């Protein structure tokens, strides 16, 4: 069957998806057979810049260096190993079917497309599922200590949105182990002289020459030095922008700056409003709070989510008998139960709290209870599965989850939106690529658990080595001299912005602004969005941005380590991005996945898609200055292999 969306739309010739012809299952292999190759002896003449060293960046850097390219890596942190991929807990999906439970590439593809509420590109998602198995092989060979069974083979567990066990894991530290694997592959190439690392360096501008990405401007975060770096291609692997909400599960330094500066140089930003609110996070406890901590989705394998049936029930959870507990996910979604996808679990938790059943001091929490699993499997087994998560929970809350249920609430976790990329992961600026969470490509309007690690590594290990070669084969390897006028101009832009920030000695701190922005975003561009609220958000963010440039206090000087200068610079970009997110959410008059517009819901309160008018990717083009209205173009999504249905997990 074929579902074509309306073709009467504002398309841009730049948004050509470049999806290869042919049956879904053959597209990637035929593409690989047709891409141009760079002769092994010529590869060393090309230089590739990789910005960001998380799973996507480290795996891309290692793979390209192995092929013989010269690779320069950049990270804002003091070592590539600290990238926030390190904090991913639960696992990584692959279609190995080691459990003999009927898994296949097609099923992983299908679950991911459906999980994303049919707002991702079929061919990209299929490729992701297709390379998933090779990722596991690669990681095991690198010495990643995945969980194993007594027979010596790999163990699996289940994640939300799937009825199979296809998630590979390393206790509750899967991201750490995969990143250390990719980091070690990277360090091997540092050892061999194929990668030059630039740590504590922040990308401030993209350099575009004759319409192509040719380099970046960076600031050395230890001494403030502004540097120019030229290359034949630039890979942006800088993660997501969840910190626009101030409180999120992202690390404190995660930011949108590199991606945003690329947007301002012509890389279109796709589906910026698609944000994942993760259902199981430790609730907010006070105003001083600087971040939220995730409790892995894997916990929903063994934990049961409930609230008291009686509103405002203040009894201790252990004193509430079973018949007075509302296991709302199990009751509302009997076939997936506690393992519904994240967007569904989050919305339902919000719903029961809005109705007065929430627990804890704020009433903004639900229970995640391990009582029954501990009874069934024993405390040791539960500890083996989730010990580090239980310990972390206890450190933060001072409560022991073996004895009393965890209290959890949804929090911003991941951004499905990002720079628009074609099938080759190239943005609308030739020579500029976006990988991992920084791009928009694979998760549609909602990402399934254990798919972020899969996508980061798929892009870096198995996609980009082919597609960047295809581009470079057509490029003369004449490295641009950094004295080129475009480098000069880009550097001036970066310096001007920093000077402007440093001159600002107002009476509000960067944190004041970030918190205020976060509140607008959470209240109006968060789990539930409405036309009126979004219009208010646009107005409020504009006003806040203006106030920021007049009244913010930025301490210190340019020529030293100055983290609040870095922070001010990043928040200044969040203040522009937040508005674009609100515009995108306002423009999309439907609900899909994590994007829930109050006006568009089914009678049961589920997301109501509009496939006739909104089966497309929204890609936003920078209008030239941040206070003008951006232009929205559309890439229609064509589904040739799956039938678009109302997503049901009942």
């Amino acid at each position, binding site marked *: 069957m074929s579902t074509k969306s309306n073709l009467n739309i504002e398309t841009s010739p730049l948004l050509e998806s470049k999806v290869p012809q042919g049956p879904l299952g053959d597209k990637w292999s035929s593409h690989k057979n047709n891409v141009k190759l760079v002769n092994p002896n010529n590869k060393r003449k090309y230089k590739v810049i990789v910005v960001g060293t998380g799973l996507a960046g480290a*795996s891309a850097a*290692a793979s390209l260096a192995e092929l013989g390219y010269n690779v320069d890596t950049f990270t804002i*942190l*003091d*070592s*590539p*190993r*600290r990238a*926030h991929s*390190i*904090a991913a807990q639960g696992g990584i999906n692959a279609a190995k079917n*080691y459990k003999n439970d009927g898994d296949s590439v097609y099923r992983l593809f299908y679950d991911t497309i459906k999980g994303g509420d049919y707002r991702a590109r079929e061919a990209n998602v299929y490729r992701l599922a297709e390379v998933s198995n*090779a990722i596991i*092989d*690669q*990681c*095991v*060979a*690198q010495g*990643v*200590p995945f969980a*194993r*069974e007594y027979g*010596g083979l*790999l163990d699996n567990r289940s994640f939300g949105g799937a009825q199979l066990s296809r998630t590979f894991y*390393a206790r509750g*530290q899967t991201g*750490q182990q995969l990143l250390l694997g990719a*980091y*070690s592959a990277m*360090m*091997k190439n540092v050892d061999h002289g194929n990668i030059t*690392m630039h740590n504590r360096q922040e990308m401030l501008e993209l350099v575009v020459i004759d319409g192509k990405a040719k380099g970046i401007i960076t600031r050395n975060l*230890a001494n403030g030095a502004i540097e120019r770096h030229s290359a034949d291609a630039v890979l942006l692997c800088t993660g997501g922008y969840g910190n626009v909400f101030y409180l999120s599960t992202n*690390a*404190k330094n995660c930011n949108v700056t590199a991606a945003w500066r690329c947007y301002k140089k012509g890389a279109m930003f796709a589906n910026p409003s698609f944000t994942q609110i993760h259902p199981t996070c430790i609730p907010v*406890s*006070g105003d*001083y*709070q*600087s*971040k939220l*901590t995730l409790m892995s989705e894997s916990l929903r394998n063994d934990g049961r989510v409930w609230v008291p049936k009686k509103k405002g029930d203040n009894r201790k959870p252990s004193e509430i008998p079973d018949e007075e507990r509302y296991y709302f996910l199990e009751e509302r979604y009997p076939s997936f139960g506690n393992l519904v996808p994240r967007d569904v679990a989050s919305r339902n938790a919000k719903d029961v709290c809005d109705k007065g059943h929430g627990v804890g001091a704020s009433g903004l929490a639900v229970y995640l209870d391990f009582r029954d699993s501990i009874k069934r499997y024993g405390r040791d087994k539960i500890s083996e599965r989730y010990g580090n998560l239980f*310990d*972390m929970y206890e*450190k*933060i809350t*001072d409560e022991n989850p073996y004895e009393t249920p965890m209290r959890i609430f949804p929090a911003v976790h991941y951004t499905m939106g990002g720079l628009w990329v074609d099938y080759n992961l190239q943005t609308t600026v030739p020579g500029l690529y976006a990988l991992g969470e920084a791009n928009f490509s694979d998760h549609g309007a909602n990402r399934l658990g254990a798919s972020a690690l899969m996508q980061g590594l798929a892009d870096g*290990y*198995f996609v980009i*080595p082919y597609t960047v070669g295809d581009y470079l084969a057509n490029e003369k390897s004449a490295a641009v001299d950094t004295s080129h006028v475009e480098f000069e101009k880009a550097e001036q832009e970066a310096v001007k912005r920093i000077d402007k920030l440093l001159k600002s000695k107002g*009476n509000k*701190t960067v*944190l004041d602004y970030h918190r205020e922005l976060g509140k607008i975003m959470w209240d109006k561009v968060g789990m539930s969005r409405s036309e009126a609220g979004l219009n208010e958000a646009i107005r409020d963010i504009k006003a806040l941005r203006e106030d920021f440039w007049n009244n913010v*206090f930025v*301490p210190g000087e340019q020529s*030293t*380590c*100055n983290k*609040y200068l870095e922070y001010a610079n990043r928040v200044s970009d969040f203040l522009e991005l937040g508005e674009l997110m609100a515009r995108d959410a306002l423009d999309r008059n439907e609900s899909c996945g994590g994007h829930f517009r109050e006006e568009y819901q089914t009678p049961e309160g589920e997301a109501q898609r509009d496939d006739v008018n909104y089966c497309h990717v929204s890609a936003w083009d920078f209008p030239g200055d941040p206070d003008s209205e951006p232009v929205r173009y559309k890439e229609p999504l064509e589904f040739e292999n799956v039938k678009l249905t109302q997503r049901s997990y009942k």
Partner: protein
Amino acid sequence: MSTMTINLKVWRQKNASTPGKLVDYRVEGVSEHMSFLEMFDHLNEQLMKKGEEPVEFDHDCREGICGSCNMVIDGQAHGPQKGTAACQLHMRHYKNEDTITVEPWRATAFPMIRDLVVDRSAFDRIQAAGGYISVNTGAAPDAHAVPVSKEDSDIAFDYAACIGCGACVAACPNASASLFTGAKVAQFARLPQGQVERERRVVRMVEQMEKEGFGDCSNYAECEAVCPMEISIQSIAEMRREYMKAIT
């Protein structure tokens, strides 16, 4: 909710070439639920509201896994709570009017950048000296081609859990990086995948550690006591055994 007042003595140093000193700060309005780093955020807000320069400190994930934070708190790397990085230490372990001294990691191999921020790139260079298994992308056999006993895999994981924070170095009277290096050596030595490069790896990593200016290990075991991941000093014994086997 009642709040506390905490008296801090914090190491301030503009850069490596300027001498540093402990500076006293009185931080009011500290909630018991704040993390130690959130108390520093709070201090910095107070300083900036007075137009003063905030304290620089490294931090990122704030959930104990990235290894960025590095504070010696009252003489202990990462502070008093066992198996806990500074970012996961909460103020409920302190009481009103406590005085707390906070200093950076101190080691020749970790040069000063500013205040509590030091340069730990020596760890990257140790890792680059063979702290990997050479397998190019795409060259791996099926993940089930080589079974690994659950015991070996679990032990390898215990070593692999190192977050590379450098507390072991900061705590060691010799400023030795043996726990960090030993953990990586022991992880790979346990796994069938790590066998081919086993000898070459340990020799190169140990030599790099010395080159960086880290001291030798004299079994003080301070490293194990402060390690936020509670990595066993057994890893140092394994590293030595591996090293002796490799050079004889």
